[in-house]
């Protein structure tokens, strides 16, 4: 038996490695976007790719998100697998028409004749002190669009595995990269990176019996911390990392909530019209008779993303999660 050398790696490195390996395995994979070439991306995710694969496959495009995604559509029509970068969450909005009117529905409108295997990488979310338009959590817009897969990793290993799965998918995938986890480190074997489950499976990050925290992306480590802190209060929390918002893993989520009888959905994006409402409804529909309390949501406030010096008040933190967990003692309150 060989011993696998586990080394610390950052999520950004794992994402870069996934792009590199996908490009090496499949000559139709092309990386494109603003600054992805010579600079290696503003987060250095594409570092070294242009040198290794050349400008034809790692292309610094003009600064135009609709153009980046729109030309990627044409490239995919001709048999390529474009992986486009939107650089920052709020920069992706000019590309929404291409995404919604074409990328998401080309397979459907052509009765399967013209699938578009495009991966749209969107660095998203706050917590890095970014100025305005650099910290949005726009996942609600994406999950409301049929035809797109929407995934978001929370661990270094998932960053690699999910991005490989996204690029290999014959369907368009919006790949949401939690910016504040780019530099999070994990022991990971970069020499033998493992693919993870196919897109659409959630992972139970921590097993527990008293309640389930349902979360994804940047909120996963926060929930893990909250779960540790809750032990002092006598709460044994389970943490489910969705990994994929579309498709949604009802099975894992429902099984967990049926075991624990209580659930809190945690995410950064606003609560009203946010993913948490959908998740809470799904859990209620499937687990009503198992629930000891209403499904609660801990979300960002329903405000435009705040300036960086105030963002800590907006982002769901450990205390806000613990407060919600306390409110799960429904019977005692009512």
């Amino acid at each position: 038996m060989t011993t696998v050398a586990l080394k610390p790696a950052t999520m950004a490195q794992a994402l870069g490695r996934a792009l590199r390996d996908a490009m090496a395995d499949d000559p139709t994979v092309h990386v494109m976007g603003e600054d992805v070439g010579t600079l290696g991306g503003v987060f250095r995710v594409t570092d070294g790719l242009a040198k290794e694969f050349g400008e034809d496959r790692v292309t610094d495009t003009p600064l135009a998100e609709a153009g980046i995604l729109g030309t990627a559509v044409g490239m995919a029509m001709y048999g390529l697998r474009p992986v486009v970068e939107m650089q920052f969450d709020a920069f992706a909005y000019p590309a929404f028409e291409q995404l919604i009117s074409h990328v998401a529905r080309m397979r459907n409108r052509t009765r399967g004749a013209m699938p578009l295997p495009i991966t749209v990488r969107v660095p998203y979310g706050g917590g890095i002190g970014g100025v305005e338009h650099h910290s949005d959590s726009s996942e609600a817009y994406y999950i409301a669009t049929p035809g797109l897969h929407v995934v978001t990793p929370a661990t270094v290993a998932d960053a690699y595995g999910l991005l490989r799965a996204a690029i290999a998918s014959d369907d368009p995938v919006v790949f949401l990269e939690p910016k504040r986890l780019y530099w999070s480190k994990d022991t990971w074997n970069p020499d033998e990176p493992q693919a993870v489950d196919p897109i659409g499976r959630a992972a139970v990050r921590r097993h527990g019996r008293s309640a389930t925290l349902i979360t994804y992306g940047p909120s996963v480590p926060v929930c893990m911390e909250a779960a540790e802190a809750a032990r002092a209060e006598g709460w044994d929390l389970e943490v489910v990392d969705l990994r994929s918002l579309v498709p949604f893993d009802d099975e894992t989520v429902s099984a967990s909530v049926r075991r624990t009888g209580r659930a809190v959905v945690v995410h950064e994006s606003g609560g009203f019209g946010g993913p948490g409402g959908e998740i809470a409804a799904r859990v209620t529909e499937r687990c009503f008779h198992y629930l000891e309390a209403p499904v609660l949501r801990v979300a960002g406030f329903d405000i435009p993303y705040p300036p960086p010096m105030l963002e800590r008040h907006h982002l769901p933190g450990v205390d806000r999660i613990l407060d919600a967990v306390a409110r799960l003692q429904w019977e005692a309150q009512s």
Partner: protein
Amino acid sequence: MTVMEQRGAYRPTPPPAWQPRTDPAPLLPDALPHRVLGTEAAERVDPELLRRLYAELVRGRRYNAQATALTKQGRLAVYPSSTGQEACEVAAALVLEERDWLFPSYRDTLAAVARGLDPVQALTLLRGDWHTGYDPHEHRIAPLCTPLATQLPHAVGLAHAAHLKGDDVVALALVGDGGTSEGDFHEALNFAAVWRAPVVFLVQNNGFAISVPLDKQTAAPSLAHKAVGYGMPGRLVDGNDAAAVHEVLSDAVAHARAGGGPTLVEAVTYRMEAHTNADDDKRYRGDSEVEAWRAHDPIALLEHELTERGLLDEAGMRAAREDAEAMAADLRERMNQDPALDPMDLFAHVYAQPTTQLLEQEAQLRAELDAEARHHENEHESEGTAR
């Protein structure tokens, strides 16, 4: 020293590396639209090509009339007619090689049909049985695009991808005058020029974006002038002169194929019908304007040229009309049959692998359909008993 004094002392110098990158003069379009018919240039054109263009124009006019009639009969939800613009549609189709790609907008069914697409398949979007009733790869025709100008970056990307693969493929994208105001028009032209993509943009300037005339759409001297800012040649052509449109597009396609990059062609034409059957064009234009353009009809222009030169006689005209009539009769007959629809198709092509959520919804619809069928069966049975 005051600020003003400082400014006075300031001697601007040009930035160190500055030099003009391109001489814009060769990129500029001519002041007047290029014309061939009725000029000496027409004699250069292969008579066979002129006859072919004529036959396709006559077919195209008949197709527009038939499709408009089908709208009135309720067989089509809507039909944006290209009557008056047939020269652009036909030239766009005929100028391409089989391996090339056409990117039409919603008004360009005729271009797709002239390229060889089954006339019925070209109309499914407008009939409403499916958005795109054909496999785009079969004739290399992208889906008819309803959002404005969003198909232009697709054409650029496809041409770029083909070029990267070493394939000798050109993409031709059609857009209207209104579409040139959209952001995607700008981004597509900019990408195409920077990448030197083998793509040709044909703007059919038919005078109106629904009701808004060109002078409210742009302040540019012509739409072809916009090319210069992107660093590609702009060409202005009489869009009712089929030979001229064919010539200008041929040059642009050859230029693209030879690695010269994109061209923006503006064809000046006129939409003779309203935008669609839902539009009342009397509210924004006068009869005299429409009549003036009727005198510049693309079929009449070409017919005049051909008959003057003895290339077409009464029998030839009759043959073209009969061919068009046969096409219309076939279209009418097949469009008058209800399309066979399978509701389960709703779920068939959303994803390569349907999500569990879609599988649940698919099961729900299946159950609803079964219940409906049982209900009908019961009705029949009770009718039988009553008798």
